[in-house]
């Protein structure tokens, strides 16, 4: 069933050029090369950025783990012989590393972690996975294999044959492992005595052996138990440290291991940051920034976030989806050549070809722009390429400025909305971002209600928020915010003044109160009632006025700067908006496709004979559709004879008029054959299977579906 095809060596290309594929159908577009290069460089930037983010986020965790590892075998190193220490050292130091349910991302974390370990603590690391270790023997085999291999790495392959032998010959037991460890440590002792005494390499004296169980939950209990019990016996001779990678909760250790075993472990818990936080950081750094010219449209972002939240919680997959968006965008949009840093884009505009100019003119957003201009300018835009290029440069700059402002104002709005009760505009900035991209946010009900709520904030909150906003605007790259900052600062000082005034008044009020301290119940009630009355009818206090002003000001900022991106001219160049493509590729529904094809072949085969309305199909549909439709009417078992008869009834009706009695036998055979084919196709698709329950019956494998 397998065939290898090798081209003759002459014909074989030296290196495949991916850029060639980029050209695709529209061969004529000469910018494809440039587009591809832009795409690749942008992707590389983004990739390194995400890696950097991941590293930064993990740093804290790794630091904690490293200090734990350093601490864990300090007793061992000092070779203390005290009785208490010995008792304690029966316990294996263990780190329980809670990583969250996004198992697919763990690989990356472990890889970078083992790198860090290798550099800082110990060369002896073994990464074990449950699927390699069905029993203790295999586990030991894997463990020793990895440890001895890493030994090679340290000594740079000088005695390979020794290891070769050891892997095959040495019985995999704890004793041989200990012997190996003693050998190795002794060797490093003797080999590098001078180096060792020097300052930093103290850790080499007897580095711990770190065993990482990548997916602790999927190990069989017995294997884990046995391994722990065995190794705890040898903990004096071998400084072992275990690290459990846990996807669910730390309680799993206790439910997997009985008390007698878990008491042999000295467990410390470490928590990696949640994948949600990771995602928000990624979105913050990739999307809510002007650093990268490429942007995601609202629906696309929704799709990606939904895949993350409801399917896998995997940040890696999110980034892959982002990559796919980029590739799609640069592949399908010829104008994406302008999707680069502003300076480059301006240069590229000047060298655009005539075809590309025509492409620009075809953009819907550009057309809208043209329609808004006076007639002479319209003509110039539509005819003169040079004029068009000038305008496009200006528009691109506008777009850039818009993005700069957008991000700052969005953050500022988020400061206000993220602390409101019930979060009408969402807790995360990504939700706010989506809402703003979708349509004019100030026209939505949620925005209205959050403004209402913002008008009821207390003073200290308002002040802190204003301070945060000031910080955001000061640190932003937008140039238009000097005035805004001033305005906000003015608000702050006003609040300050208000506070002082209130304090003064407070003093006076309290003094007043002290005077009329003695009141009876009747008077109290009366004054309270009066107070209530007055409050109802009372005019707004100064503070309230000011608060209204602040909220209104924020509102005006939102209205000027948070215009949805698809209202901007030339947004098609930088925004990727075809969410359906993305959904189709990442979150496909094969069964629905089959269902549609079988139930409604007209969706695919555009033939008028197949056209039908409602949930029915015509009898001229392909055989498999008819057979499928017939089988839907059956229960768990289907009689083949009935089925065949029904099928031939349908098919004969189509061919009815021209089928003569003479050739009926022949026709029958063909129908029979067609039926067989259709049925075996259904079997291949998994709708039916042969059944032994009754002769000439097949079993149906699906429920309903009709």
């Amino acid at each position, binding site marked *: *069933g*397998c065939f*290898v095809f090798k*081209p003759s060596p002459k014909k*074989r290309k030296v290196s*495949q050029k*991916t850029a060639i*594929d980029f050209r695709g159908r529209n061969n004529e577009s000469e910018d494809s090369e440039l587009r591809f290069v832009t795409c690749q460089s942008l992707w590389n930037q983004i990739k390194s950025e995400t890696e950097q983010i991941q590293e930064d986020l993990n740093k804290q965790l790794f630091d904690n783990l490293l200090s734990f590892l350093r601490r864990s075998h300090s007793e061992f190193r000092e070779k203390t012989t005290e009785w208490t220490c010995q008792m304690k050292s029966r316990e294996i130091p263990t780190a329980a590393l809670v990583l969250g349910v996004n198992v697919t991302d763990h690989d990356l974390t472990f890889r970078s972690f083992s790198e860090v370990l290798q550099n800082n603590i110990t060369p002896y690391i073994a990464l074990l996975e449950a699927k390699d270790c069905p029993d203790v023997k295999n586990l030991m085999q894997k463990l020793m294999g990895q440890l001895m291999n890493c030994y090679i790495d340290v000594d740079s392959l000088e005695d390979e044959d020794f290891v070769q032998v050891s892997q095959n010959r040495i019985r995999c037991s704890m004793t041989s492992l200990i012997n190996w460890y003693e050998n190795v440590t002794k060797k490093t002792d003797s080999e590098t005595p001078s180096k060792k005494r020097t300052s930093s390499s103290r850790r080499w004296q007897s580095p711990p052996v770190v065993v990482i169980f990548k997916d602790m939950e999927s190990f069989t209990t017995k294997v884990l138990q046995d391994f722990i019990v065995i190794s705890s016996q040898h903990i004096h001779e071998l400084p072992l440290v275990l690290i459990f990678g846990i996807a669910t909760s730390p*309680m799993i250790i206790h439910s997997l291991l009985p008390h007698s075993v878990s008491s042999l472990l*000295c467990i*410390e*818990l470490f928590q990696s940051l949640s994948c949600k936080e990771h995602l928000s950081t990624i979105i913050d750094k990739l999307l809510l920034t002007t650093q990268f010219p490429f942007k995601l449209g609202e629906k696309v972002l929704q*799709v990606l976030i939904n895949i993350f939240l*409801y399917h896998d919680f*995997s940040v890696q997959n999110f980034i892959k989806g982002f990559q796919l968006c980029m590739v799609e965008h640069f592949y399908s949009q010829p104008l994406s050549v302008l999707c680069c840093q502003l300076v480059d884009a301006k240069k590229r505009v000047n060298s655009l070809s005539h075809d590309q100019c025509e492409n620009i003119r075809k953009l819907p957003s550009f057309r809208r722009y043209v329609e808004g201009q006076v007639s002479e300018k319209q003509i110039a835009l539509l005819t003169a390429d040079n004029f068009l290029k000038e305008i496009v440069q200006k528009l691109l700059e506008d777009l850039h400025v818009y993005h700069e402002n957008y991000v700052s104002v969005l953050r500022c709005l988020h400061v206000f909305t993220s602390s409101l009760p*019930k*979060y009408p505009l969402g807790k995360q900035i990504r*939700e706010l971002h989506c809402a703003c991209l979708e349509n004019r946010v100030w026209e939505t009900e949620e925005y209205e209600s959050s403004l209402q709520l913002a008008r009821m904030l207390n003073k200290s909150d308002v002040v802190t928020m204003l301070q945060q906003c000031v910080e955001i605007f000061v640190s932003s790259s937008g140039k238009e915010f000097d005035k805004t900052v001033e305005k906000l600062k003015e608000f702050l000082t006003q609040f300050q003044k208000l506070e002082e005034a209130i304090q003064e008044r407070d003093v006076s009020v309290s003094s007043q109160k002290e005077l009329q301290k003695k009141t009876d119940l009747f008077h109290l009630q009366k004054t309270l009632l009066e107070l209530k009355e007055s409050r109802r009818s009372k005019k707004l206090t100064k503070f309230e006025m000011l608060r209204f002003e602040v909220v209104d000001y924020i509102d005006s900022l939102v209205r000027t700067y948070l215009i949805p991106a698809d209202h901007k001219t030339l947004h098609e160049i930088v925004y990727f908006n075809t969410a*359906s493509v993305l*959904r189709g*590729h990442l979150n496909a529904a*094969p069964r*629905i496709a*089959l*269902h*549609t094809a*079988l*139930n409604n072949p007209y969706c*695919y*085969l555009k033939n008028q004979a*197949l056209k039908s309305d409602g*949930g*029915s*199909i*015509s009898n*001229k549909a392909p055989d498999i559709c008819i057979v499928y439709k017939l089988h839907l009417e*059956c*229960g*768990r078992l289907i*009689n083949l004879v*009935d089925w*065949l008869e029904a*099928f031939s*009834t349908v098919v004969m*009706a*189509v061919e009815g008029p021209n089928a003569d009695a003479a050739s009926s036998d022949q026709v029958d055979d*063909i129908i029979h*054959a067609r039926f067989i084919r259709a049925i*075996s*196709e259904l*079997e*291949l*698709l998994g709708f039916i299977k*042969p059944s032994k329950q009754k*002769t*000439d019956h097949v079993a149906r494998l*699906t429920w*309903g*579906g*009709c």
Partner: protein
Amino acid sequence: MSQPEGKGSGALQVKFVPDEEVLKHIADDSGIKVRKDKSQLMANVKRFVKKLENISDDEAQEILEEKNYVAVLGICAQDPMGNGSSISGGEVYSFQTPKRSSKMAELASELAQTPGQSVASDHSKCPEKTAKTPQSSSNFLWAEIAWKHNLIPLKKKEFVSTTPYRLRKRLAAPDLYLESESEYSASCSEEEDEEDQKEVSTVLSGQKTPAKTKAASTPPPRNNLGKKNKEDKMSNLVEEYFEAHSSSKVLTSDRTLQKLQKRRLNQQTLHDLLKKAPLAYAAEIKELNQQHESLFSKWMLQMHLGFNIVLYGLGSKRDLLEKFRTSVLQDSVHLVVNGYFPSITVRSILNSITEEVLDHIGTFRSPLDQLEFIIKRFKEDSSLELYVLIHNLDSQMLRGERSQQILAQLSSLPSIYLIASIDHINAPLMWDQAKLSLYNWLWYETTTFSPYVEETSYENSLLVQQSGSLALSSLTHVLRSLTLNARGIFRLLAQYQLENKDNPSYPGLSFQDFYQQCREHFLVNSDLTLRAQLTEFRDHKLIRTKRGADGVEYLLIPVDDSTLTDFLEKEDEDV
């Protein structure tokens, strides 16, 4: 622990709680680290209570997000997908509803009687049609449910799946019923049809006046998604499910193909006959294929960027992949795997990579070793590139967990580019999260509607018409190499099996009886010789042994009766 309900009033209760519970709460909340010292935890009970509040807030948030998700799904359903895949899941995955045995014939005759017309047109007047119910898009089933609900109060449950017409007949003359059950004549079914039509129409008209029919039988309209309605629908679905599965007996007619007097077709004649039948809608299919072919360069691009391609959709994708291979991959090393081939294994795939692509001579202890070797070689030599095309990645032989794991690991190599096709409806269930991330799929819908010619030609379990020629020839070949006595022994067994072919609970021939018979025919002289002979048969998979309930060994030839008859006839000719 204080009750979460109490949080609204702001009154916090502090109670003594066992450590385990506290631990559990911490375990639930991912924000806090568990340390071994418990005393600290005890001191902080109050803090946890506060945490709890936070958690419930989070839950509220979650619910909100869920709503959003549903809304987004709605949005996406409205997306102009072009191919109408905006079907809600409920339509595809719904519960099975009880069916009547004659339903298929009815649909068939209806389809036949209204050529070119839509089947459901008769019922298009019914107002409920616009309100699509999730569990039935076809009005047939729908009408049937209504019909059935109407009937239930009238008669006993066991008669549910027979038509009232037949019921009456049955009560009048039981003999007649039996006949009509096994072979109903055309006129009879027509009558039934008419009656059904009437039945349906009365029910449907009855639904317009709600006083007449039970409201429960009409599934609530979809656009009105009140909670109560939802519950109703759920319970309805559940009831239907259990109704469908309550009786182990399935009512189908007893007709068999043998009575149809149709000669069985073998693979060759089937193939010839199908060649004569013209392929329907060839032009449209060609157009579809051209659409897919325009994607070739995109596939190449995406494969080079580290994605792998998986094709799904109705119709054989073999030709498409073949075209892809010939048009794009001519100048590069590539491996074609026919997954539908019945004897393909992962091992053979790995072997062809190591032996033919990497030119490695030598064997490996296990596929995992082999995989490791391949991975190492590909990582060392960055100039190595390999395209792998797998037809039917979901075939019987490759769908196992281990095979998929190995293939996934292969495909995750940056210089191995995988493009595969899947057909089975449950194929995506093969992959868990880990495998999916290794495969890094990009899904492409390539519905081709072309017949699965190659893929089904190997389907040797195929329902009816397989001639069993393979089994027959292997039988004769093996037997020809045996001694005369051995052949006689096998003949005895075969004859005995054929004599009992009408007995459905035939367990096989017990060893003792067999020994007796063989002795009588002077074929063996001792228990031991017979056992030796049987071992040989078993090694060649000619017979199977089974232990009965009483511990007696039963012998069986695992070949169907017709093949066995053919075999005996042939043997007779030879002798």
